[in-house]
């Protein structure tokens, strides 16, 4: 899967999880850019992304993600 396919689907997930239709994620988006994105919401987000792309993140990935770009790379590798 390539980045162009992933971003629109990922964006929907973000809007849904954070209840904000103005969100527009890019590879460089970080938790600092989205006000409500804290450690608890991160679990919600990971769960939602996993079910959207039919895949599982490893703990090191969940814990170590620095920006959306890293998430996209993992999805590109293993997502459906």
């Amino acid at each position, binding site marked *: 899967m390539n980045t162009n396919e992933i971003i629109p689907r990922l964006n929907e997930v973000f809007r849904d999880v954070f*209840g904000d239709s103005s969100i527009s994620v890019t590879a460089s988006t970080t938790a600092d850019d989205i006000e*409500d994105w804290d*450690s*608890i919401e991160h*679990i919600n987000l990971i*769960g939602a992304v996993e079910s959207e792309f039919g895949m599982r993140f490893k703990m*090191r990935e969940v814990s*170590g993600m620095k920006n959306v770009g890293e998430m996209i790379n993992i999805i590109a590798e293993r997502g459906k």
Partner: protein
Amino acid sequence: MVFSRLFFIYIFLPLCLLCYAVARGTKAKNTVLIIFSLVFYAWGEPVYIFLMLITAVVNYTAGLLIGKYQGQKGDTAATVSAVVYDLLMLGVFKYSGFIVENINALFSSSIPVPNIRLPIGISFYTFQTISYIIDCHWEKVKPQKSFKNFLLFLTLFPQLVAGPIVRYSTIEKEIEERTITLSDVSYGLNRVALGLGKKVLLANQLSIIADSFLGNIGSSTMLGAWYGVIAYGLQIYFDFSGYSDIAIGLGRVFGFHFDENFKHPFICKDITEFWQRWHISLSTFFRDYVLYIPIFGKRRKYGGLFLVWLCTGIWHGASWNFIIWGLYYGIFIFIEMKIGKKNMKKIPVVIRHIYSKFVIFVGFGIFYFEKLDKLGTFFKTAFGFGKNGFIAVQDKISLMNNMYLVIVAVICCFPIISSIKKVSDKHFVTKATVTSAAAIASALILIVTSVMLVDATTNPFLYFRF
């Protein structure tokens, strides 16, 4: 050795700074730091220093093995062995008495309770080694090849005994190479003075109020219980954040940039925010290494949350009140999560402030009383079911005598210094004025602190016992 002792301030530190300045090159400076750090630790722990050194050897070796067998079975084996060793040491030296006591109580057995003294700083340095090992395993950092450098990371005396829990990744590069500017030194020394002031001028004084009202909770009134617990909460904050200021300040003088450990926690509007501002190095540790543990399946959000707060409680001490205290916070975080951030924001700010401060200070009550019957008396007294009424003469006298102390303490909970800096940095004249004023203030704090410490017999930091 304790930062807030004249020996440290006027002999140990100047001597260390002198040797550090004389030493040429990072390697020599590192040697100076290691020697002084080991002396610093051995001063209070002449025996357990060997435990720390063994822990250093074990984790250093495990790090090398993880690097050698990256991604293979050997990597996992080394990771698991090191983490198990670290947790086992913490378990034996911190919790064995507590575990045996509870087994005895549960099964009416009479296993002799081991009387093991807690090695200073073990809770902090163990978490540092665990984070190092897991980060090596996750390939977030490269294992440190030099034992000397690893020892420096672990023993660096500013942060050795009571945090912040400095991650290897934070100072990885600075261990090998760092530059120290004059502004680093000036910032660091100001920060040290600030921390000393918080500890000696505020925390130590507040502790007198806390101990006289909470220490004798059986004879306290309702007002006395609240007054005592507020003084205690402020005491812990100034004690622990003062320690962190000194640690961060000293780190900076030696060229290290540690992460902040406190960000004015009492200005928070809810409990979730409180924990983003309080003892940050501990909560981020649990966030990164516990919260996302994949053992709860679909319930991982709640399972992870429960585990984090159970661990937070247990980490603070081998006593039921700390476990209750941890889970108590877990419940409020859970409730806030259920209400949702959007709905939380709809609640008027004043109400959120009252709610959060109420929860936090009741929490400090739970934190204070290690004996559960005393904790029960505290709750009865604080909520109007005590036997000593609402107010008594001793409350009024103490309030009158300590009015200025409490007012200054409350004012110091706000981010005053950063607010002043934000405004003054805009113009060089105001910037120079504020910089000079800060230097004078630091010198004054140091003088007053020293005078107060001449008579002080003992004043260890509260977090030494964790």
